[in-house]
């Protein structure tokens, strides 16, 4: 059997249905199988990535009906790059969380592992699908798993966060469905390439109405202001590996869906300006809120929203270099924010309360985790030796090319705000007096391996960004070349 894009979805599905049975035979299967599946997805990525770069695009049909008639999966350099990063980070998070909740009895672990794996698989589905309704189905899968995992601890706050998320997520699904309905009545198809081809024939009012539905629905998924109120609650209440998946995988899939729909499907003027303005407002509000947070995970969640805002700004600028920077930032954010959640959760685990006060002087107890957290914090702000620097740098250059001076000033000012709260946190770890009672929970060996691997990635890419910039240039080209996308799929 030749490896093809559908393996990304089929392997997790098979595993999800089989875990319940396997867990009856071998107790640890529920923990092991997701790791095997996610590792298999990395292999799929490694096999498919060179093919995509060579051919420019892979399109796979499902059920034997070719492109406009059936469902198809598309790997462009852009989506293949994101799928690869999601697979690798998904596996790293699994490795990190392998010992997670060991003290829980069998049943709950099984549910947790299935949901976590399917959340990653659903995000992969959103990224690789070439069909609008299929994308809706995968967004539903991500949504359902995310609501359940948010409430996994069954506390009062978790239930509240989950319910909030459920309400706004259902609103997103409904609006997405309405948008798809309008598009379907106007074009008679659900294939994204064919919709893009027929879009110029759609009446302007229909186009705008559908676009508004899509922007609201996918804005919720991509954590765009003002529809992102659910995110900080969900991030802070979910189990820590899940928070890492939210930041690294789910938000990437949300932004991908938003960008794919606005860039490829619609040909409406002014969408770029909208993305810039909304992105900037998202970033500003989120970063200012982050300063005010006393809870570490909430602070990281708001910082995530800020980064997503910057990604939207970069996509909004729309030039090749800006899109290059945006995809680079998506990757950086995924790696670094996952790392921040992973290391940050050890701080929370070791202090009695979830607040920042618990971090005071914690480096004496957790020197390794503290070092990793600090590197990640510097990287996300954009200090030079780390990868976060390059993405921000390219976005600023792209803005400069378009003479968007006010935007540059704005981004730099927001970066200062970002700097304030990250440096404050790092200062707490290293320079504050330890006053709070700490418990001793050393990181497990698998968590150390996973975190070291990701830290290494940040540093290596920071020193040699050329290792991946070739892929990023191809990805940016493929996203901007809409005609090629249509022609390649419908030929």
């Amino acid at each position, binding site marked *: 059997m030749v490896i093809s894009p559908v393996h990304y979805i089929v392997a997790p599905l098979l595993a999800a249905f089989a875990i319940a049975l396997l867990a009856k035979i071998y107790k640890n299967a529920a923990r092991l199988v997701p790791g095997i599946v996610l590792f298999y997805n990395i292999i799929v990525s490694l096999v498919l990535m060179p093919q995509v770069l060579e051919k420019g695009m892979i399109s796979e049909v499902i*059920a034997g009906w070719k492109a406009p008639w059936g469902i198809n999966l598309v790997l462009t350099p852009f989506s293949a790059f994101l799928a690869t990063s999601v697979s690798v980070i998904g596996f790293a998070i699994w490795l990190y969380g392998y010992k997670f909740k060991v003290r829980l009895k069998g049943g709950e672990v099984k549910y947790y592992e299935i949901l976590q794996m399917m959340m990653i698989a659903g995000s992969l589905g959103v990224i690789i699908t070439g069909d609008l309704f299929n994308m809706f189905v995968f967004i*539903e899968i991500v949504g359902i798993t995310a609501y359940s995992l948010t409430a996994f601890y069954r506390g009062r706050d978790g239930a509240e966060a989950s319910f909030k998320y459920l309400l706004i997520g259902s609103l997103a699904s409904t609006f997405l469905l309405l948008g798809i309905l309008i598009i379907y009545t106007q074009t008679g198809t659900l294939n994204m390439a064919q919709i893009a081809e027929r879009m110029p024939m759609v009446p302007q009012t*229909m186009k705008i*109405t559908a676009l508004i539905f899509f922007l609201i629905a996918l804005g919720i998924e991509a954590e765009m202001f003002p529809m992102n109120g659910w995110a900080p609650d969900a991030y802070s209440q979910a189990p820590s590996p899940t928070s890492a998946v939210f930041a690294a995988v789910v938000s990437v899939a949300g932004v991908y869906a938003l960008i794919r729909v606005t860039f490829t499907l619609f040909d409406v003027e002014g969408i770029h300006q909208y993305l810039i303005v909304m992105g900037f407002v998202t970033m500003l509000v989120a970063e200012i809120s982050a300063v005010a947070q006393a809870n570490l995970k909430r602070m990281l969640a708001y910082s995530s929203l800020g980064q997503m805002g910057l990604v939207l700004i970069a996509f909004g600028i729309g030039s090749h270099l800006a899109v290059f920077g945006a995809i680079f930032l998506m990757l950086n954010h995924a790696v670094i924010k996952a790392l921040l959640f992973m290391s940050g959760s050890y701080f929370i685990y070791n202090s009695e309360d979830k607040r920042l006060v618990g971090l005071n002087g914690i480096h004496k107890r957790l020197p390794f985790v503290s070092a990793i957290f600090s590197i990640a914090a510097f990287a996300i702000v954009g200090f030079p030796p780390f990868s976060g620097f390059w993405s921000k740098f390219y976005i600023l250059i792209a803005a400069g090319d378009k003479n968007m001076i006010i935007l540059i000033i704005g981004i730099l000012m927001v970066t200062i705000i970002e700097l304030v709260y990250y440096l404050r946190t790092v200062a707490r770890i290293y320079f504050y007096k330890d006053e709070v009672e700490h418990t001793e929970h050393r990181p497990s060996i698998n968590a150390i391996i996973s975190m070291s691997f990701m830290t290494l990635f940040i540093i290596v890419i920071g020193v040699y960004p050329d290792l991946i910039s070739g892929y990023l240039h191809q990805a940016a080209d493929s996203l901007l070349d809409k005609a090629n996308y249509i022609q390649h799929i419908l030929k």
Partner: protein
Amino acid sequence: MLKKYIIFALIAVLGFYLASTFKAIPFGANRLGDLNNPETVSAFYLQKSPEDLHVANTITAIVVNFRGFDTLGEVTVLFLAVTGLMSILYRKEEEETEERLAIPSSSLVRTGAKILFPLILVLGIYVFVHGHLTPGGGFQGGAIIATGFLLMLITYKTFYTNHNVMTWLESIAGLGFVAAGLYGLIVYGSFLQNTAWTGNLNDLISGGLIPLIYIFIGIKVGTELTSVLDTLLNIKPRKK
């Protein structure tokens, strides 16, 4: 007070805008065009499902074959909803238990339920086995089966579903669906592809893998919805 009026006015404007937009869409009109030279997917499906797949019920052909991948996704959504529900409502054995039924049901209800239960199951099975011939199918049949279990659950205090059996049925049905898809991938090179032994139109055994997949869906939906009802109704701690 003023705030109320402003909100009302905003909703009215939005409603008017949406109503006028949706009014412009000719729902229900025949916009298929030429069936032999299809431009829209609906025309293509109408023409292909009796011709190539030999399936009388076009909806089934769309749900299970043309857009089977979506259906697999929807089945997974249901599966994950059940998994999520169980992860949240899971009760530890030491936790307090409550009675499911405050008032015992009358003998009339109990006798009626006993008679109706097998009939409901048979109807449900009939609906999903004939999914490719008559209206209905896996989802509908599964829902009917679940109503049968609901009837038993709310009538009898002592009626419990066997979780072991449910887990096995659910997993095997899910694996069967994916396996049917993989069969297409391995044999024809496309996931869920289905072109062999399609039989004659209107026969019970026709449409190749379509009836088989719909039976899997029926079993899966039936067990999953029953699990949902059971989890929500059943306050008794689960025996391991």
